[in-house]
């Protein structure tokens, strides 16, 4: 039975979500403050399979909860739920480490589908690996879920990036962005295309918000993030991934 943590201060919404998710067969816990969410996620990191996190919470808001949980090494798939649905807010949620984002008011069937999607996403990531067409990317015979470039390896099953002896845990969205860039290695990838293909955002969004993600990815994959060799900026366009610099 999958376990869901709901972080929602609006009692009515929390009760309604609990009723529906329990009816779907999930085991549900509810907390109503950001502080309680961080405590639940950090003291018992393996207690939850998915988190539904509201943004506007008393005290620490959802963005802060997300960032702190990720910094503390908690990488449970998280769906952010919020009344604020501007593209900037969506990107802010993803930049904080969220895996998915749903605006209120939401459709119940969509919410449940998204939660199921988060629980299934690892398999999806692995499956999509097979669409990779770049000659520079090779998977070892032992595992088809690992994309290698240079002395680094992106494990899509474990959502880990291994850089020599170091292991970085990635969020689903970070893994998605990196996978997308690896799959398009050598090609210039415009920011707008990244937003459309990875985030599914088609509105007139401030594409620079994506830069936060790139900064984080560079910290993982570059020896010197100020002088990137794998993840290059193409001024006025976007980025280009180089597998073997």
């Amino acid at each position, binding site marked *: 039975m999958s376990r869901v943590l709901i972080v929602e*201060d*609006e009692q*009515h*919404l929390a*009760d*309604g*979500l609990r*009723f*529906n998710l329990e*009816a779907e067969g999930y085991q549900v816990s509810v907390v109503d*403050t950001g502080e309680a969410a961080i405590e639940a996620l950090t003291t018992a990191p393996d207690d939850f399979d998915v988190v539904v996190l509201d943004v*506007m919470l*008393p*005290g620490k*808001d959802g*963005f*802060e909860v997300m960032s702190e949980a990720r910094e503390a090494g908690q990488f449970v798939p998280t769906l952010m739920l919020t*009344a*604020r649905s501007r593209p900037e807010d969506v990107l802010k949620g993803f930049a904080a480490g969220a895996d998915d984002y749903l605006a*209120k*008011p*939401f*459709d*119940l*069937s969509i919410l449940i589908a998204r939660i199921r999607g988060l629980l299934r996403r690892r398999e999806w990531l692995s499956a999509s690996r097979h669409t990779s067409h770049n000659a520079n990317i090779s998977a070892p015979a032992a595992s088809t879920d690992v994309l290698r470039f240079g002395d680094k390896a992106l494990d899509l099953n474990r959502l880990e990036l291994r850089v020599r002896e170091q292991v970085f845990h990635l969020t689903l969205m970070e893994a998605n962005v990196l996978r997308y860039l690896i799959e398009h290695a050598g090609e210039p990838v415009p920011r707008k295309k990244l937003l459309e293909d990875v985030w599914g955002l088609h509105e007139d969004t401030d594409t620079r918000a994506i830069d936060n993600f790139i900064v984080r990815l560079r910290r993982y994959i570059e020896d010197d993030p100020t002088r990137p060799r794998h993840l290059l900026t193409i001024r006025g366009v976007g980025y280009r991934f180089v597998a073997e610099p």
Partner: protein
Amino acid sequence: MVVVSRKKSIGLFITLGGGLILVILLLYVGWVLLNWRTGALLFLGILLVAMLIAGVVLNTFFLVREIRRNEQHDAFINAVTHELKTPVASIRLYLETLQSRPVDEAKRKEFYGIMLDDSARLLQTIEQVLRTGRIGAGNRKPSLTRFNLSTVVDECVLRARALHQLSPEQLTYHSAPLMVLADLDDVRAAISNLIDNAVKYSGSDAQVAVETTVVNKKYASVQVRDQGPGIPKAELKSIFKRFHRVPGATSRVPGTGLGLYIVRSVAKRHGGKAWAESEGVGRGSTFVFQVPIAK
């Protein structure tokens, strides 16, 4: 988060303003040292420096005020977005639940109750935003009628007891007949706001006392006293500003930051006043709304 970003941005501009004033003064001191023998130049210099400093001070002042306004506006948009979308999200969630799942009779009744609460919350937010717009427009004169204020307060108390499911012991009312000449609709909204606030902020164990009295034979006064979380002294005036919400534990209570602004605006439009008293955090609050008695 909003408070932190406001402090940061305002701090930057205040520091910049202070730095500029320091640079001007240093340049001026240097200039005086070079030209101290020439009286006319010295006078001109003093005048120019005074003008420059006044300009920088004014610029910093207006800049900081504008930043505050923008951030209050953003906070308001966020609060209203939240206050409009949250009850809609809740109503929709329960409707979809009722439509798509087998729900027993007891749960069904509970869900109907929740949806009614949420629709009342939604309606209240819409009314507050519309009323603020009307009051803010300034060109609408109050539609004055002569009525007994204590009857209106009685109506508001009965409505609040029903809405918040409170007993007469939890929400008490002592009245005195008071005839006023005022806009009935606005006064009713103001008094309802005060009572709703007192109940909302008191939490599950609300104890609210409402009283109407005559003050100095001139004013009809409505006092709403609660045993809730109280208000920090520094916030007693600010809470009546538009969009303002007290930071801290009470910020989790839903609201748009418009209710008390409406209360004070209505009082002022009738030649009256409204204020808050509190012994401090944890010691309850009293809100007073006064309008002149009809002659």
